[in-house]
């Protein structure tokens, strides 16, 4: 059923990777772009091409949200309803869209023009509400940001003008990062016209640093990064240089994998680099690959970042044309291929081992550690996984040196960082700030304060997964250690501000729904516990909660936190746990108000699978079914 050209495209993709199986997601994209969805027959054909069992292909396709198991309308519109967008009113836009189109989520208009779905965070938290639109049977897709009802009308009209599809995505850039130019390095260029072009980059002295690094010993590069103390920006904050040092000697090949899966709700900093300054990332990749002696670098970009992927691919082509990538870069005998690999809608693939599973062409399930990727990662070879921002910092450290870097930040969190600020602030956006700066300065000085100057109710300091903190922590420094002191974590640096007047229950429920949607399903606590918690929260929201639910949630989230296979499990409940802890009274009041008699739900099955001899049921006969049949 696939055309010859699709088949040969798939074969080319297979040849691109060290192991053909890695091309399975790209191949599924090719098929979907041709057919509009993935019928069993197409998967069967792909299985044959890859020499796999059809069940494997089916299982893979089923894991990733961006592959369709049934036909969609001509345009598939997905609106982010996750917490940051929710705080910016995406609920209204979602309602408006449903009304305009006359369909609900998961449905397609009668004319077949539009399918509508709600979506998880698209990395557009400062520019939400946002719709991700894809056109069936094509590779076309883009974001529509800063939506108002009026803009929704414009968007729908534009889409329907067949031949005049809105072209290249040029997001409005409401990024107020220019406040303190003296700390602008990563973001120095992004406001310039053509900031993404190699000419712009070269005019700023681009690629000189890579040249310089290539003249150094690899070990020296590692040493510099170690000395600078560059910490990972993907979430865990592990020192990059130290990680590189874990690579076992004499085992080759080695791989660099850049984590551009950026899917942690409230995080959108990597996107900015990918879209508007891809060359600084490429230069960082060159320095890092040289340091660890890798000849392949993969950039795993989340599937929805189609525009970022395009920009990266163009940048790679430009760099290749100049001889900065490919065979014998900069005239040396060092070869380096950079491959842009598109994810396909799975948050868990940001977790490094799940990412590697995905990149190898499997379902994105996390793997056992040890072995750690640095020892046995991609294709079981030593692999360094680093975040986009981490690698970009490497480029600047290599230019200016470790001491330059250490002039900012704190002893244990040195340097500058990108903060994605979203939620109810006047000027949300990405800010490049030194570690240690306080939340107060960030929110009130950089971002101009809260919307309508409302008081702050709560802050999520490091992406949706991190425990919330109260406004009494406003003077805590934004660095790894200080935030831990305040009871949370810096995570991916996504700061979400929630103001008084917002109810915490819908926020907790919406957050839980995200984790339920994204759980990979491998381990029991996360798979079973997450959806249980969501069901309880939904019930409370619907006015059927009981106080016992609060105990149950406290108990079960403990299991999810402590017993899951990968860090996703804990991350999925830290937020909920923090709201139970910080806003327990709000839950209680709401429950007592909405369900004053404490009615328990009618449950279809309520198993007590072992007779509970400790408790006497005196009132069993109250149950009508057990009442004696009286003549």
């Amino acid at each position, binding site marked *: 059923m696939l055309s010859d050209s699709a088949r040969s495209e798939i074969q080319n993709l297979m040849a691109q990777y060290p192991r053909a199986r890695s091309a399975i997601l790209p191949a599924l994209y090719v098929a979907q772009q041709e057919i509009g969805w993935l019928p069993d027959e197409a998967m069967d054909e792909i299985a044959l091409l890859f020499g796999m069992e059809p*069940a*494997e292909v089916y299982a893979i396709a089923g894991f990733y949200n961006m592959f369709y198991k049934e036909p969609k309308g001509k345009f598939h519109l997905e609106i982010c309803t996750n917490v940051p967008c929710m705080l910016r009113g995406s609920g209204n836009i979602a309602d408006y869209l449903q009304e305009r189109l006359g369909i609900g989520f998961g449905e397609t208009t009668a004319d077949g023009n539009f399918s509508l779905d709600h979506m998880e965070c698209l990395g557009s938290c400062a520019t939400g509400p946002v719709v991700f639109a894809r056109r069936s049977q094509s590779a076309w897709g883009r974001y529509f940001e800063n939506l108002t009802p009026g803009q929704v009308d414009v968007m729908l009209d534009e889409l329907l003008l067949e031949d005049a599809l809105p072209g290249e995505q040029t997001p409005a850039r409401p990024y107020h990062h220019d406040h303190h130019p003296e700390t602008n390095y990563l973001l120095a260029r992004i406001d310039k016209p053509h900031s993404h072009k190699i000419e712009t980059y070269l005019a700023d002295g681009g690629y000189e640093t890579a040249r310089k690094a290539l003249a150094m010993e690899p070990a020296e590069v590692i040493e510099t990064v170690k000395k600078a103390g560059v910490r990972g920006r993907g979430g865990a904050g592990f020192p990059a240089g130290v990680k590189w040092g874990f690579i076992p000697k004499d085992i080759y090949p080695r791989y660099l994998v850049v984590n551009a899966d950026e899917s942690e709700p409230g995080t959108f900093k990597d996107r900015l680099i990918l879209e508007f300054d891809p060359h600084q990332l490429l230069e960082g990749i060159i320095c890092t690959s040289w340091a660890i002696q890798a000849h392949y670098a993969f950039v795993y970009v989340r599937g929805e970042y189609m525009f970022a992927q395009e920009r990266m691919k163009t940048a790679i082509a430009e760099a290749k044309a100049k001889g900065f990538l490919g065979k014998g870069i900069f005239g040396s005998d060092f070869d380096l291929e950079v491959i842009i690999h598109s994810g396909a809608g799975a948050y868990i693939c940001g977790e490094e081992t799940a990412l590697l599973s995905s990149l190898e062409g499997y379902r994105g399930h996390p793997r056992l550690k040890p072995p750690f990727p640095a020892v046995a990662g991609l294709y079981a070879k030593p692999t360094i996984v680093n975040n986009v921002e981490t690698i970009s910092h490497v480029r600047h450290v290599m230019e200016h040196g470790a001491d330059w870097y250490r002039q900012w930040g704190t002893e244990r969190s040195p340097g500058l960082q990108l903060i994605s600020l979203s939620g109810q602030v006047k000027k949300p956006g990405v800010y490049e700030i030194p570690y240690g700066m306080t939340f107060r300065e960030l929110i009130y000085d950089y971002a101009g304060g809260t919307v309508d100057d409302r008081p702050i109710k709560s802050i999520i300091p490091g992406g949706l997964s991190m425990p919330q903190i109260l406004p009494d922590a406003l003077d805590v420094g934004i660095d790894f250690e200080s935030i831990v002191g305040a009871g949370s974590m810096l995570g991916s640096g996504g700061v979400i501000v929630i103001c008084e007047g917002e109810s915490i229950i819908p926020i907790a429920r919406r957050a839980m729904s995200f984790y339920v949607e994204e759980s990979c399903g491998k381990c*029991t606590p996360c798979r079973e516990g997450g959806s249980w918690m969501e069901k309880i929260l939904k019930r409370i929201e619907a006015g059927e909660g009981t106080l016992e639910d609060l105990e149950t949630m406290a*108990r079960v989230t403990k*299991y999810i936190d402590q017993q899951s296979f990968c860090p996703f499990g804990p991350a999925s409940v830290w937020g909920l746990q923090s709201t139970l802890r910080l806003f327990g009274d709000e839950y209680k009041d709401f429950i007592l108000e909405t369900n004053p008699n404490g009615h328990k739900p009618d449950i279809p099955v*309520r198993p*007590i*699978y072992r007779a509970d001899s400790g408790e006497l049921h005196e009132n069993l006969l109250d149950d009508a079914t057990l009442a004696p049949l009286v003549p």
Partner: protein
Amino acid sequence: MSDWITITIDGQEIKAKNGELLTAAAARAGIDIPVFCSHPKLDPLGACRMCLVEQEGPRGKALVTACTTPVRDGAIFHYESEKAIDARQGTMELILINHPLDCPICDKGGECPLQNQALEHGTGKSHFWEEKRHKAKGYPLSDLVMLDQERCILCWRCIRYLQEWEDKPQLGLFHRGGETVVDKFPEGELDAYTSGSIIDICPVGALTNRLSRFSYRPWDIDRTPSICTHCAQGCNLIIDSRNNEVRRHVSRENMAVNDEWICDKGRFATGITKHPDRLQEPLARIDGKLQPVSWQEALQRVVTGLKTIVQRDGPDAVGALGSAKLSNEANYLLGKFMRGMVGTNNIDFREGAALLADPRGVPALADVREADLIVLMGSDPSEEMPVLANLIKRAAKRNGARLIIIHPRRIELAKYADVFLNPTPAEEVALFDALTRATMQARMEAGDEEIPDWLRETEEVESASVEALALAARLTMQAKNPFIVYGADYAWGFGARDIVGALTNWLITAGCEERLGFLHNQANAQGAGDMGILPDYLPGRSPISDRKARSAIETLWQTTLPTQPGLSYGGMIASARGRIKALYIMGSDPVGEKPADADSMKALEFLVVQDVFLTKTAQMADVVLPAASYIESAGTFTNTERRVQRAPQAVRPVGKSVADWAILMHLALRYDPAASAAWKTATISEVFAEIAQVAPMYADMSWENLGEQGQQWDREALPMGKRMHAYSGGSATPTDKRYPYRLVVSSLLWDGGTTFSATSEMAHLASRSARLHPHDAADLGLASGDLVEVLSVAGSIKLPLRVDDSIKPGTVFVPFSLPEAPVGTLFDSQGPRTNVAVLKAAS
């Protein structure tokens, strides 16, 4: 014992192997850490989180999964700590919230790890008030296996089994998160040949046996540790029965034989004990028709019939066919009766004299596990021994064993091969000679000066390039621990002697002839030979010319033995119109295999058939003796690695049928009441004890001490110095323009044999077709599904065509034992290696 270390669990110091998983270390110390996803035969996964314990570390105590934690010296664990217990209770609660708890109607109930662990590690109470998730219930994955997705706890065992042992990931996880289900590809089918193993290892009742479900409860069955007799691997299994009816077969571990697995034929093809067509009582031909008679009368008729002929024409006018499907005891007593009482050496079985098998089978099946090189010649384990095939795949994939395959078809295992050679029948000798030369050359290059010049050049042949020959030569020469077998494809029929000679030459040259073995197909082909069901060998495999061996047996049997070699299987049938006047056929159906032989049978004066069914041959008999199947009688079987294993009686025989060995005993006592002193073997263990006296390699064995894992007889007990075979240049069936194709015959797992087709639910699985390469089919203007006639000098059969690119051009593949299309019809006087023509047939 330097790699033994000490770890502490709950304050108790225990010895453990450095680096083993905590679950294994704890189990040795009697601590049974509960697990679901973990399985001793599968790679650790750590998904279910049931096995949590606390481990002390530099940063305090932390919960770890015992199933993924390797133990190191001094490690300290807490299994019964409050925290660990709470953690496991938490996991248990979470596993159960969406489980349907339909234990009362679940086949697993009573032997269910989930049920048992819920009792032991659960709190007994659920706090889950929500509606359970609903998924597909009771839906078929194949004709054999049912899936209930609601019961599934997503332990991945089934998926991992298919991946790690079958290398056929036909099941996968679909969707993700809470929606995750185990499933197959919608259009696909679960058709791996050991698919049923996943039923045994599923820790819940999510996977059930489609043929046996709802027919038993695990606490209400009788369990008989037995073996499978579908092939010569002799996999260990348990026959579960209730009210004297077989309910199911499940696997039983024997690391020397089948690890912990059995194939789907062994598991599901259990219909023989329940088949309505089973013979219920003895029959005798009265007024030209077979009619029920009493055992007394039936046996008396056999005695009279045989005696009349012996007295008139001498003992050599009588012959007997034994069976590679029947027990050692049945075969032994048949031989004892024919040689000791009737007085003839006319005794053989189908895989007997005609098959050029190494009389010691293979050195050891378990050698595959550690082999650095595996050589398969004319043998297709995937179809003939699926469990062994899986061991081979694993050796190749995990241990890096190199694989050389020489076979007339591109068999499944070819995809793992380093060297796959595909000679057309009749080209094997040239190929093996070329391999010999290549090996000589390699030896010369390695410094061996004694190779004659004319042998120093590797020459390419039709089926192998110089490079392939050189690689095969190098691999065999370098192998330290090879597993090398040939199979029936190269050991039976025209020219087989030369092929076996040529392949032996190659391996002698490579220095590994000692490791060369023969892989039998039939359950007791090895044992039937050991029992002396051969025209020229005594029980214990001494030639009949061996006076000492003969007189030892004569003393024991209180008789004198004939000294002239008898006729072979084919010889007896061919002589049925001449010298042979009477045949006693036990567990064999020559007419079914080759209908043309009906004429010979008709010519006999007296024919006795002892069988479980009224076979084509039995229909022609004068007396038919109903035999109990192996499940209904006791016996021992000797598998292809000479392992003698017990198959005790599991259920009562059908109708008035009687165990084969017992029939023979009763017959003998009536044939010569005076000899009763030599026939005092009233139980299976007594028969076996006598075998142990007669066959030296069985000397130390007894029914009791065979135990549940069997005993292997020592290969050294039968030294077989292998010598270079005279250089023949090869002899092949002469080509004949009328028959332009070479016939390729071998067994497929799903065949039409009696024992298989007795399971009516499976009979349709048999692939009833002749197969041709697409090019040949195109040349002949044929397509899959066309009815074709395959004909040879000997006869012709009609069956549908299947176009199959694993078939070598110029050959036609016809499987054994197809219903209504017995390939034996095509065999020439020497067997299957013949030439055929293919024509489109009118339907």
